[in-house]
């Protein structure tokens, strides 16, 4: 039982969170982080002693989807996260003060907790035209990001936009949008791609830090392996239908109603890495494939350009019109070759005949 006043566990108990619910949360986190036996106990021990870390949440060129994801957290609910587990000093969507008072909260945190606070960044950072396409309090996003992230303990880039520019960076990227990794150099950064990212992975990352004092292991793109290490295709509950050859061919057909594989409807599960099938969304309610819609590959790099069209497995051959799928193009090429060879054969025969007539 946490004796130190102000420890996370202490605050949770004061708010009426039972020991049982607390241990449930620790078990959930241990499972999400894929920790070995004893992980839940380790997390519980850490949270009983840890002081509330400070977190600020920056929003740039965003749709607030990751904030919405954050608001869907359960075990603990976001109210508990905001007030008890973390000290969230700045979040434009939910904080009470506005204008200069809001900016003061941020500035105070950066000054007084320099090097000790965590930053979550949501949304892309525009670089074109001096960064004028996103300002807060009259300051360009790029300047805010450099100052706040530069003085932080660590930055968590949540969502596709904060990772690689996301939708604002989709062709033709009118505002020169980039993700945090390309806008701010030399910081401790962890990326949680997804559109939006699943709050379970954010909570897992923060809890990992609280328990072990370090950020989780990441892959070559800076994504935590516990969340982005497995291919959706390999964990999908419809995989047996894929291997068997049972595919939905049209929306609402017999296969769709039976829950068959959505491969033919453009599902990008085979090329996407995220824990959606395991963790699911909205307190484990469902995820796109379970609901009958193919994965759109939203955790993949530049997915708005690489994973579209969402309803086709492959993009079209560029420059040959809307219906020029690779198959049509290739079959056309082979047919043109065959036709050319037939013409060549006829021409040979004609030449032979004419040279015979000339009495050669």
């Amino acid at each position: 039982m946490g004796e130190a006043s102000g420890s996370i566990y202490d605050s949770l108990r004061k708010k009426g969170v039972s020991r049982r619910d607390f241990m449930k949360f620790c078990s959930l986190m241990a499972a999400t982080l894929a920790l070995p036996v004893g992980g839940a106990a380790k997390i519980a021990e850490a949270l009983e002693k840890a002081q509330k870390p400070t977190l600020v949440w920056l929003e740039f060129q965003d749709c607030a989807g990751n904030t919405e994801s954050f608001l869907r957290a359960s075990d603990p609910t976001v109210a508990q996260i905001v007030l008890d587990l973390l000290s969230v000093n700045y979040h434009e969507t939910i904080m009470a003060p506005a204008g200069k008072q809001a900016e003061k909260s941020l500035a105070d945190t950066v000054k007084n907790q320099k090097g000790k606070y965590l930053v979550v960044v949501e949304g892309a950072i525009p670089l074109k035209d001096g960064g004028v396409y996103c300002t807060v309090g009259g300051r360009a996003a790029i300047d805010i990001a450099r100052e706040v992230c530069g003085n932080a303990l660590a930055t968590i880039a949540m969502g596709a936009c904060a990772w690689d520019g996301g939708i604002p960076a989709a062709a033709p990227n009118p505002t020169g949008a980039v993700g945090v990794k390309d806008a701010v150099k030399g910081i401790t950064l962890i990326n949680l791609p997804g559109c939006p990212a699943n709050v379970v992975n954010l909570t897992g990352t923060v809890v990992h830090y609280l328990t072990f004092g370090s950020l989780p292991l990441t892959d070559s793109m800076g994504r935590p392996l516990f969340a982005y290490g497995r291919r959706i295709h390999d964990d999908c509950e419809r995989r047996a239908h894929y291997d068997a050859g049972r595919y939905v061919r049209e929306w609402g057909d017999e296969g769709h109603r039976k829950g068959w594989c959505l491969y033919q409807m453009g599902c990008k599960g085979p090329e996407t890495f995220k824990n959606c099938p395991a963790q699911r969304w909205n307190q484990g309610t469902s995820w796109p494939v379970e609901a009958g819609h193919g994965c759109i590959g939203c955790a993949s790099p530049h997915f708005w350009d690489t994973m579209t069209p969402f309803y086709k497995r492959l993009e079209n051959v560029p420059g040959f019109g809307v219906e020029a799928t690779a198959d049509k193009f290739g079959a056309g090429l082979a047919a043109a070759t065959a036709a050319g060879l037939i013409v060549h054969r006829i021409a040979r025969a004609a030449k032979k005949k004419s040279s015979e007539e000339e009495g050669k």
Partner: protein
Amino acid sequence: MTTERKRTYIWEFPVRLTHWVNFFVIIFLSVTGLYIGGPFIHPTSDQSFTMGWMRFIHLVAGYTLLMMVIIRVYWAFAGNKYANWRVFLPLTGRQRHDLGDATKYYLFVSKKPPYAAGHTMCAGIAYFALFLLFLFQIFSGFALFSYNSPGLVHEILGGWLTSLMNIQAIRFWHHLVMYFIWVIALVHVYLAVWLDSVEGNGLMGSIFGGYKFITGKEWE
């Protein structure tokens, strides 16, 4: 006018072996590949494993193609002069001359057939292009198969490609290059049948038994 012809061993066993194995392998890879890209068989029973089998055959055929490529590359250094790596690139002036001669004949510009003991230069370049296409299919295929499969073997076979191209681009080109291979195959068969009667040296039989009947006056 009769010409003195001598029965000569041109295509050694590894050349013919790889040729015919590739023929079957390309058919298997194409059919299974077309299915994997767009499943055209509808399931017939609860126990079907169609995609599973198609991928298995595709993978086995892919490994076989890799083996054939390795054997042929080795033989390009260990084999006779007709199998040597030099016949595939127009390195000498004589080869470049033959390239022009052969092309002119195919396009009806010249009436002089490119009599070759081994490959014409056109054939050499075409087969080199085909070799490059095979390499791309092998690397891209393994990149798709082992996307994020840990292990050095997978990294060497194709994993490295994913750091140069995004996965959907790899998939797209893997799909399209199959059709480029078909184009080369179609032209190859056409020319082989045609030149067999033009050259009169047992060209079609030679890819089975290895022997041509050459005059000694061929350019190579």
